[in-house]
């Protein structure tokens, strides 16, 4: 069967997009590799019960389950277009209860006319001596520990890195009974107030976390970071350094602990988009993200993206984008997917650079605002449950490309998104990764843990003529292992002196050869016939 829409990712973006489309009557499938919906934030609730938006997310998830096929434990490893234009998402699943399931993996192909990529982001780690010791986790990895309480209680944890998302992690860990010995923010820390946009709403949350940290007596130190971990078989202590502006080490001290949670921002997960040929751009922090227009359309016809693959800005932005994508998909439903690529986003071209949807609101008499709820406050606030807000009659069909100002999406959502996006970009600007971390490394510090590549080998590759990250990888193997450079890719780019490039991962997730060999079957009509086996190469033709 061919769905109207397949959504990859069951975080706030994917669920909002899927639910919006399903409520409008589209046949929708959502795939997620996790055992539950929720994504990075709602699946590993950092402050159980107290998470803003969690209750609402859970309601959305339940509503989605009634209206769409939710395929959990389905890991998408490829997104492709078949010769007839159908989009197909290849997944592997291990669920043995499914029909045909046995011991091994199965591959499942989900076909649809439209695709929404909502695959989120993952933590961006930086290497440091000892980061390969058991007990060193990413911030997200530490958050995942919270699921099983008791795993955390009694641990002595140090949180280090940069960015405001360290705070909920630390609060969650402390709340679950861990001793959080400190949050070491390599940057300037709670400089939120210095960013006017950030002061708006987010400050409320920041204050909440500051209170939480104070209650648990968790010290919060800026311009400090864990620059080395020590231990025989696992972490026993870390070196915490005071840093200068460029993150060079000024002074150090040793802190005994058994766990380190470190995170230096996020890497948007975009390889399913790049597999399909979607254009990318560099976000403020240098991360490659998928280019989308005001309707969240990528440059590939029939393919939308929402949430962190288009730029990191917190769960509210993700949810809004998912919802906007859902509305746009609904509005375009019934019309054939456009064959010409959508205009790519040019940050300078105005709000998301698209003419077919609402433009920037003119104060006062904004035509697009009519589509939203009158009197709706425009500041970033709690978005509503998708579908609650708009009456179907308020949606209009998209105009032809070039025909300005026909709103697909209520202007109020567009404006909110602009606010949250500005907020996300301001965060990225406020917490940059400074180059001094490279000085934390020693020659024998592993840069790539999968392939056990030390810094010295990276430098050797550069001496051999590797002038970019790809050739460093080819000559020294960082990024060739199990994680395909997800963990070390950013660091290797920095060491090679270039911004990270969009990933080339034709196989987005590991898949057994057995399962892979079965993936071709349904679409085997495409390839040409094999010539008959014939060992003698001197052919008559």
């Amino acid at each position, binding site marked *: 069967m061919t769905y109207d829409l397949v959504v990859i990712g069951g975080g706030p973006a994917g669920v909002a997009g899927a639910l919006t489309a399903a409520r409008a009557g589209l046949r929708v499938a959502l795939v997620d590799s996790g055992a539950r919906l929720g994504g990075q934030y709602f699946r590993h609730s950092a402050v159980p019960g107290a998470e803003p938006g969690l209750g609402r997310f859970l309601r959305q998830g339940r509503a989605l389950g009634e209206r769409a096929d939710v395929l959990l434990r389905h890991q998408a490893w*490829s997104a*492709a277009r078949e010769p007839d234009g159908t989009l*197909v998402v*290849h997944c592997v699943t291990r669920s043995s209860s499914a029909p045909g399931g046995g011991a*091994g993996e199965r591959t499942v192909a989900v076909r649809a006319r439209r695709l929404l990529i909502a695959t989120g982001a993952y933590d961006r780690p930086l290497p440091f001596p000892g980061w390969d010791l058991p007990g060193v986790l990413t911030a997200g990895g530490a958050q995942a520990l919270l699921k099983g309480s008791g795993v955390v209680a009694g641990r002595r944890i140090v949180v280090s890195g940069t960015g405001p998302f360290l705070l909920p992690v630390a609060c969650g860990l402390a709340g679950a009974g861990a001793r959080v010995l400190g949050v070491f923010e390599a940057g300037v820390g709670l400089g939120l107030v210095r960013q006017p946009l950030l002061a708006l709403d987010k400050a409320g949350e920041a204050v909440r976390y500051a209170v939480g940290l104070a209650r648990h007596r968790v010290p919060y130190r800026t311009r400090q970071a864990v620059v080395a971990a020590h231990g025989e078989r696992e972490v026993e202590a870390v070196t915490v350094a005071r840093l200068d502006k460029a993150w060079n080490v000024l002074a150090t001290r040793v802190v005994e602990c058994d766990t380190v949670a470190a995170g230096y921002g996020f890497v948007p997960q975009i390889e399913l988009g790049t*597999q*399909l*040929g979607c254009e990318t751009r560099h976000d403020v922090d240098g991360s490659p993200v998928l280019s989308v227009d005001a309707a969240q359309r990528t440059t590939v016809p029939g393919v939308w993206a929402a949430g962190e693959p288009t730029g990191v800005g917190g769960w509210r932005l993700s949810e809004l984008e998912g919802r906007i994508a859902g509305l746009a998909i609904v509005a375009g439903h019934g019309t054939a997917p456009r064959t010409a690529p959508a205009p790519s986003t040019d940050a300078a071209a105005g709000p998301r650079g698209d003419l077919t949807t609402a433009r920037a609101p003119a104060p006062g008499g904004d035509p697009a605002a009519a589509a939203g709820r009158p009197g709706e406050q425009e500041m970033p606030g709690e978005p509503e449950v998708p579908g609650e807000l708009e009456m179907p009659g308020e949606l209009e069909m998209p105009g032809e490309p070039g025909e300005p100002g026909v709103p697909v999406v209520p202007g109020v959502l567009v404006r909110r998104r602009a606010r949250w996006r500005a907020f996300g970009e301001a965060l990225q600007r406020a917490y940059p990764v400074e180059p001094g971390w490279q000085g934390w490394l020693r020659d024998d510090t592993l840069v790539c843990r999968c*392939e056990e590549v030390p810094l010295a080998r990276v430098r050797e*590759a550069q001496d*051999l*003529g*590797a*002038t*970019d990250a*790809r*050739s460093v990888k*080819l*000559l020294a*193997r960082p990024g*060739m*292992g*199990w994680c*395909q450079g997800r963990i070390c890719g950013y660091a290797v780019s920095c060491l090679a002196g270039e911004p990270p490039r969009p990933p*080339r*991962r*034709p*196989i987005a997730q*590991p*898949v*057994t*050869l*057995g399962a*892979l*060999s*079965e*993936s*071709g*079957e349904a*679409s*085997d009509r*495409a*390839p*040409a*016939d*094999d*010539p008959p*086996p*014939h*060992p*003698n*190469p*001197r*052919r008559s*033709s």
Partner: protein
Amino acid sequence: MSDVIVVGAGVVGAACAYYAARAGLDVTVIDRGPVAGGTTGSGEGNVLVSDKEPGPELELAVLSNRLWRSLAERHGGNGGFEFEAKGGLVVAETPEVQERLADLAAEQAAKHDVEHTLVPAGSLRDYEPHLAGDLAGGVHYPQDAQVQPMLAAAALLGHGARSYGRGTLRLRLGAAVTGFTRSSGRVTGVRTTQGDVRGGAVINAAGTWGGEVAALAGADLPILPRRGFILVTEPLPEPLIRHKVYTAAYVTNVASDSAGLETSAVVEGTPAGTVLIGASRERVGFDRTTSVPVLARLAGQAVALFPALREVRAIRSYCGFRPYCPDHLPVIGADPRVPGLYHACGHEGAGIGLAPATGHLLAQLVAGQEPDLDLSPFRPGRFSEEDQ
């Protein structure tokens, strides 16, 4: 000013530079990207004599095989590029195919001294314990070997600079060649995005882009891309596969003129513990879009050869564009139309294997010596009408 400018820092350009330096020439290697950033960085490292029909290419391959071995010996045993004389095993699905494989091997031996051993079905597992049980036999080629192509290119450039060049093998990376400088018809150097570079001769080793570089000098060279996908598995704790193992169908695919997809499993282990599964062949221009049917087919063929691979995970895949000429032979020699310009490109799916012989013969030519092999089958002018 250098004696020789080599355009392209792939394995072929590196070999040309190495042998030119070894012959006492001053060399400058220019590449628009890094070392091994072209097809050399997206192929496999098979150094094969088994897959070629008797003729000029096999002659080149046999010479090159010998040169790879001596390069490895000369530079520390594995050459700094993971040289492994692991041998190849070609397997046949049916007795008829086995018979024809045997005929081919006999002919390769008679004409080119290629060594082989016929392997009856019952002995296949002495060579490869995990092979499928339903095969009809095979042929073992002890000369087949393997190198790590990217390291090979880098190491040849390094050895060339350190061992022979007295500092005269220079590398200019990040400079794209945009044209040629000439004086009274003769090439005197190249124009690049980083300024002009002067040299007594220019070797075009631009691989799949060799046609574009030739065109900058006004010479027509019909070199086109032939796409290939490779699957890479997770590293295995124990080596599962000892030789490079492929089916007889591979041999026909290599020589095929079909534009459509052809796949035949070539399966081998690497020192890193991964298993490489190649290789598909398609003419689809420079299209990088992943083709799931192609990957599925490669996986299926590998599992058919080695059932134990079924539960092994593929963790990545990559594709590259082999530089091919209409007659499937490389272009090696002086361009009669452009004095001072030499070509060393178009090696299709054998450029790694053929690189040392190409570099060695071309260095002889540029240094004014008689090449060890007759280069006329590879002459650059062979595609033009005057040549017919």
